[in-house]
């Protein structure tokens, strides 16, 4: 791939929410890296359940969502580091990469979500 094509790549996070434990590490890592106020988040974990579905099975999911404050950790990435939420995720369910490569992974990983935050615009 030419340097030009690389520069035009869009980046995102792939989140395998099947195993997201709702541990808040991503939220806290982001807040501390960027000194966010108490009510400000670059990433925020949503919750579904615990609830019994119509098959009497318990469902209990967490799903971290990227807000408009997310820069995909541009300063860290420039240094060669991972986004701090990805680095610290306790269940290691987050991946940083180009949308193209993450989309390929997404096809193979049920219960995942791909985020392309605003900073990509």
């Amino acid at each position: 791939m030419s340097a030009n094509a690389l520069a035009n790549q869009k980046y995102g996070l792939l989140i395998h929410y099947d195993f997201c434990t709702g541990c808040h590490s991503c939220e806290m890592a982001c807040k501390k890296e960027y000194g966010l106020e108490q009510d400000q988040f670059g990433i925020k974990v949503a919750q579904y359940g615990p609830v019994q579905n119509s098959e009497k099975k318990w469902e209990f999911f967490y799903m971290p969502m990227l807000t408009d404050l997310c820069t995909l950790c541009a300063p860290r990435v420039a240094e060669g580091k991972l986004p701090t939420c990805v680095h610290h995720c306790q269940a290691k369910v987050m991946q940083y990469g180009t949308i193209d490569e993450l989309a390929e992974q997404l096809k193979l990983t049920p219960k995942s979500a791909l985020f392309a935050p605003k900073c990509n615009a």
Partner: protein
Amino acid sequence: MVVKGNTYNLELYKDMYTWQEGDYQVFRTTQWSAPGCHNGCGVLFYVKDGKVEKIEGDPQNGWNCGTLCMRCLDILESMYDENRLKYPMKRAYEDRGKNKWERITWDEAYDIIEEKVRYIQKNYGHESIIAEIGTGRNVWWQVPWGCFAGLQSPNQTGAFLSGDSCYSPRSSILALMSGEYLTSDMSQMLPDRYESKEWVVPECITIWGCNPIMSNGDGYLGHWIVEAMKRGSELVMVDPRINWLSAKAKHWLRLRPGTDAALAMAILNVMIKEKLCDYDFIEKWTYGFDDIAKAVEDMTPARASEICWIPEQDIIDAARFMATAKPMAMHWGVAIDQQPSATPTGQALICIAAVTGQIDNPGGSLVTRSAYNISLFSQEGFEDNITEEQKEKRLGMHKYPMRGTGISAMAHTDVVLESIETDGASNDCEQYPIMMQWMQGCNPIANMAAEAPRVYEAICKVPFNVVVDVVMTPTAMACADLLLPAAMGSERDSIRAWWWPLRAITKITDYYEAHGDEQILLDLVNRLNPSAAPGEEVKDWVNDLLANHSEADFDFDYLKEKVIVWPEWHYYKHEKGLLRWDGEPGFNTPTGKIELRVDWLEANGLSPVPFYEEPHESPYSTPELYKEYPLVLTTGARSYEYFHSEHRNLPSIRAFHPDPLVEVNPETCKELGLEEGDWVWIENQRSRCRQRIKFNPGLDKRVVAAEHGWWFPESDPERLFNVFDSNINNLTTQCDIGKSGYGAAYKCLLCKIYKCTEENSVITPTAQVLDKGGFKYERKRLS
């Protein structure tokens, strides 16, 4: 497909102790409390001008593999909290409870301690001084040594944790039955972790009585289990509450709190009746199988179903899966300990691991020792510093023979409490009064003490108290005469060997006059009994431990450079003659086998096989009480935010979890006219406290789960930070424990709940305790 996160850039994250990165000096070390938890995760501290400015998880550390939980991510708030203790302080005896402290020097503090200790030793005896510690903190190997070598007292103990209900019950029965500790295998013994060729992914992980991803108990990082789940492990989850793990489990057994022994016996009943056991292992490596078969014969799944409130078929299905899944890892938690039937429950659980043959096999339950056999965990290694005569004066040794088997060198918590209350008249050995407490890294009235208002009275009754901690706590405000500031993880040299591998904790910064726990104890020993001190610096002490009390062939400087060192690991040690003192194959027990039946217990008046005992206050054992208090109360469930009573003072953490929560089924709330978020009084015949309702639709409608560890650092210190207002340990009780001496009912009591109103909240529990002489009811006594 296993999502492994990303690959870290190892050009930036080096395998060295320290390097420069831009303006920062980066230090690679281990973080262990304070602040923290039971764990010792690998961290990178980024330091500028002597101050830590940033933390990251260490990708080169195979313990946490780069991750961190929210507590360490927020470590700067802990380290640089304005309310941290900065200097040694003293307070006049008559000012106890008042915020009237006088700054002194360390030398003045040691002078006061030396004078008091020598006076007490001379006039009352060395044993009149008690040393107390909190659970899982980086004080539990140091304080026992300081107690024995410095104070020369046999009485070091957990700070009023009734029935020693944390790990001691499990570890004592494990020692009797298997000669060792058992830990579930998530590849933590192998440096290549999940990629190791030797490791096998457990087909089944049985998680019993804990939520490891939140609690990280017993030297074990809970998220290892999530890695195994990603690789295919399925769970049997034994827990009264639905949580993330129970929702994901193949079999979730929602048992009535405190009935674990009945469930475990019914599982054994199915395994034995359906001939699902590993008979080869049983034949070769166990003793007493027929006795176990007999003991569980009557505990059918149908009977257990009634006792435990679990559908019969669920018990059968789970038992079949646990028996046939290979390998099956057993992971058990503190809920086993926090019920009067802790010992028989432990017996039944060890039987499950043994009859399925899942011992010391890859992916099973590992026979676990500290790395390099360093003798920190057992505490007995330090006992050389006290005489046999002194040991005879350890409180609780005579009343509870299980403590005398070389398993635990701790004085019994409830016996200590009664000793204080009776000025020694109730001692199970020579009568002597308790004249001084040395309390390090513990905050009993906010956290581990059952019946907190009673324990508050007791700690205030002791004539002289030294408290060592990082912030002003309710316990320190209540009773300290001397208050010594402790350093945090990155401000002290230390080592970590609970369990495997061995890790260095290194001092890279400091905070005012705070000293490391090791340094404080070493100074104490050098003052009081210098011949027992291995030197004056912590490094001398650690080098002495490595050289003379371990199999390591390196010193602290080497370990500090390496940060983390993995000894060679062996599976199937019992087959290879690696466990017994005589080098023969087998286990470290009298028969050389895992003793399913323990003759020693029988000889000491206890049951050699598991049995079921109803919780002492329950719908069936106290039906009258149940009419008045129609909900089963379980306490102490963990959250990601807090480690016991820690972290309430940190704004970033508190914002996630501002108030104490009691989980209740929404249908129960509807019947009681309660909504989510309502403040409610939780009350029983002893007392009450208030917490906020959190709906949990997965709880049995008859069960509620309340949090522990709540105090309010933002409130008035002279009201003890309102420590009793939301304290669930107003409702628990001391001195009502298992016959073995182990296990108190933190997890299985009765209560009622009702909405807080202005009228019914006029006298808060804190006001009742501080202004009105406490709550009136008949206190239990050890039988």
